[in-house]
């Protein structure tokens, strides 16, 4: 039958792409996300692919557009996205960053290319009316903060809460979520990423100093790992030890506190409260050994990774997105078109992926995961769930935080 050709799809191959900070200041940690997703694709390819098609994942460096010399000659996100379009690609998957992906929304929409599982918790990805092909993946900053708020209210009812967030929607959405959840910080500050880059972490210190003077007992951080480090360092320096509540984006125990190793006896992040929508390495989730297996099978991208290596948050994150994508492909069936794929995505509940709650979209909701559990950092390599109760909510101001009813199931048989 004469089927209209789907761009990026042949009988043998599906080409997809992503833009990522492979080099430059933002690359540390984040450059592992797409690699880990690719490890999953290679694993699946080695088992015959999906309906005979192997996944070819093309990762382009957009340097996150961060200032610094590490990025000389690297074109910006739009240029790199264009070069992906020229391949062509079936979709972009797990491209990273809020501002970067914002700039290519219209471009991808114009060409009808799905922009899947953007690696960012912004609310920008949930706009199916205007961008029908655009899908987020992780819980929004807003949702996460609402779950924090519920916990803070219940556990520390008299605490003096202060807030430090990044000066874009990461910080502002996070703050809004906190307030929507009933916790109004007594002091709220936003830092600028630009200043972080030009004047190193020291620019965070004044905020922490201020919280110390104001006697804040809880400090909520909506920060990237570098800024988390700076905040923890500044507090250490001042001899100030509030209860930290750190968003999942900036709390990965292994990424955080690289500067402290060998300088202080105990990891300053220990005891901090965070949030996870993926099973932590301390739990008995079957996904953890599975991800180890997949990553070990990819020595090209993860040289030296063994069973005793630390599975950091970025790797787990990438692997989880990889699984989500192959699951969705599998569910779409042999006849792969963009329309068919998007339809499947919006009508299926994917419960066999590593995330704690099933991944489900509808034609009016493209946000992605909507729940997880609270964790506490127990060492410089691990965090563990506080109670293990998985909460769920939505991004609205009124939507309540409830205990999740449906949890993800185990590993699908076909990739076991």
């Amino acid at each position, binding site marked *: 039958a004469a089927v209209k050709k789907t*761009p990026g799809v042949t009988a043998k191959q599906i080409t997809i792409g992503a833009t990522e900070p*492979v*080099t430059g200041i933002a690359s540390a940690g984040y*450059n592992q996300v*797409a*690699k880990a997703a*690719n490890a999953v694709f290679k694993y699946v390819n080695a088992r015959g692919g999906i309906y005979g098609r192997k996944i070819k994942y093309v*990762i382009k*460096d957009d340097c*996150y*557009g*961060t*200032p*610094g*010399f*590490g*990025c*000389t*000659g*690297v*074109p*910006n*996100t*739009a*240029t790199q996205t*264009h*070069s992906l*379009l*020229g*391949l*062509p690609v079936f979709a972009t998957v797990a491209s990273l960053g*809020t*501002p*970067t992906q*914002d*700039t*290519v*929304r*219209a*471009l991808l929409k*114009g*060409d*009808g290319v799905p922009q899947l599982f953007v690696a960012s918790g912004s609310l920008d990805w949930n706009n199916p009316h205007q961008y029908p092909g655009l899908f987020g993946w992780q819980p929004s900053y807003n949702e996460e903060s609402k779950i924090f708020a519920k916990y803070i209210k219940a556990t520390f009812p008299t605490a003096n809460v202060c807030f430090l967030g990044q*000066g*874009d*929607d990461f910080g502002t959405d996070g703050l809004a979520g906190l307030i929507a959840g009933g916790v109004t910080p007594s002091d709220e500050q936003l830092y*600028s*990423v*630009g*200043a972080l880059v*030009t004047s190193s972490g020291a620019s965070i210190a004044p905020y922490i100093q201020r919280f110390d003077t104001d006697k804040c007992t809880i400090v909520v951080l909506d920060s990237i790992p570098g800024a988390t480090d700076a905040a923890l360092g500044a507090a250490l320096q001042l001899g100030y030890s509030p209860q930290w509540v750190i968003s999942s984006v900036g709390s990965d125990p292994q990424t955080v506190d690289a500067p402290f190793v060998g300088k202080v006896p105990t990891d300053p992040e220990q005891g901090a409260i965070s949030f996870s929508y993926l099973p932590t390495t301390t739990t008995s989730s079957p996904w953890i050994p599975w991800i180890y297996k997949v990553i070990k099978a990819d020595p*090209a*991208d993860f040289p030296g990774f063994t069973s005793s290596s630390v599975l950091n948050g970025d790797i787990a994150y990438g692997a989880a997105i990889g699984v989500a994508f192959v699951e969705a492909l599998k569910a779409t069936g042999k006849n792969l078109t963009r329309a068919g794929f998007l339809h499947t995505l919006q009508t299926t509940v994917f419960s066999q992926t590593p995330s704690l709650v099933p991944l489900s979209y509808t034609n009016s909701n493209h946000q992605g995961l909507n729940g997880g559990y609270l964790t506490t950092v127990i060492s410089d390599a691990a965090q563990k769930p506080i109670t293990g109760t998985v909460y769920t909510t939505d991004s609205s101001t009124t939507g309540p935080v409830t205990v999740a009813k449906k949890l993800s199931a185990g590993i699908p048989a076909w990739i076991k």
Partner: protein
Amino acid sequence: MKIEVVRRRFAVSVALIIIATVVAFLIAPTTHNGVAIAIVLDVAVACVATLTLPGLRSSHPVVARAALSMLGVVVVLFVAFFLPSASDFNLATGAAMSIVLLGLSFLTGASGQISLGNSAFMGVGAFTMAIWANHHATTPIFITLLISVVAGALVGLLLGMPATRLRGPYLAGMTLAFAVAFTAILGEFSSWTGGDSGLQLPSEARPPHWLVSLFHSGASPLTTSTLWLTEISIVVAGVAFFFMANLFASRTGRAMRLIRDNDVAAELVGISLPRARVIAFVVSSAYAALGGALWTLIDNSVSPPTYSFALSVTILSLIVIGGIGTISGALIGGIIYAYSTNVISWIVNQTGLNPQGNFASQLNGIIFGGLLILTMLFAPLGIAGAVRHFWHRARNRSSG
């Protein structure tokens, strides 16, 4: 020039133009729009006819420059029709970059002032474009481009005035500080500039419909969204090249070389140093702003980190490798910008390096930086200078 020569040339050209038009429509159905190809081929023939008129260069240099620029434009346009669309897009960004490079070639090459701030001048154009379009979506796109250029020129004036008193390293220091501070300045005006997320062009801020449809092929959706951008960028770059060639060959251009060579003697022939230096700054920043504004148009959006200091370094590298102080150097630099990433990933493929590996991902920097060093050490006038050198050598050898 003999009148018969002109007349004969004219007749031959008309004949060729008719043939070219027919050819254009013959190949049109398999590729793109016939009208566009026909125009391109016809102009090419006309330009070649003009350029081959004997003695044109010395008697009518302006006409020669115009014909050469136009020929360059139509040749690239023609090539663009047949390029895969992604390369097409690279061509558009490269064309815009070459405009920026022209400005720097003039400033640093001709007038001898070092600038590390051209990324910021570009940013001024890019953001003016986006901000204006967001507030006045109905302004025709070419007017918005012009407004951006004017904004760039004004900022150039503002920064150029203190800069005229500075020498070498101090000038480098001031322009560097401006480039580094630029993203922070954008941050201070985040209600205008969209903060860290930047701005999108509103959908109304597109070119007139007829222009898009002229280059519409219907072949793939990608082409509709980019081919016209490529065409616009190339045409604008052609115009920019023409004017810059004028400037280089003119009294003003000579004045710039004079102040670079010997400022005391230049003053004594009546050149006002501050004025000349400011003019160079203004021209350079206006050109940079034009390039930046085109980038906004091409990307359909603008985000602050694009215009960080790293871009200034890229700009400087490109013009040095291309050939500073030359016009062709800007062209070469633009082409390098357009295709260097492709070349580097090709190298990665050929060498069998793991493309996600540490080394492969840093190859860009290693190659770029290495080229920069080697160029300066062994061919300080860049590729353009080296080519010219070998050309002269070859000619001298063959003539005697």
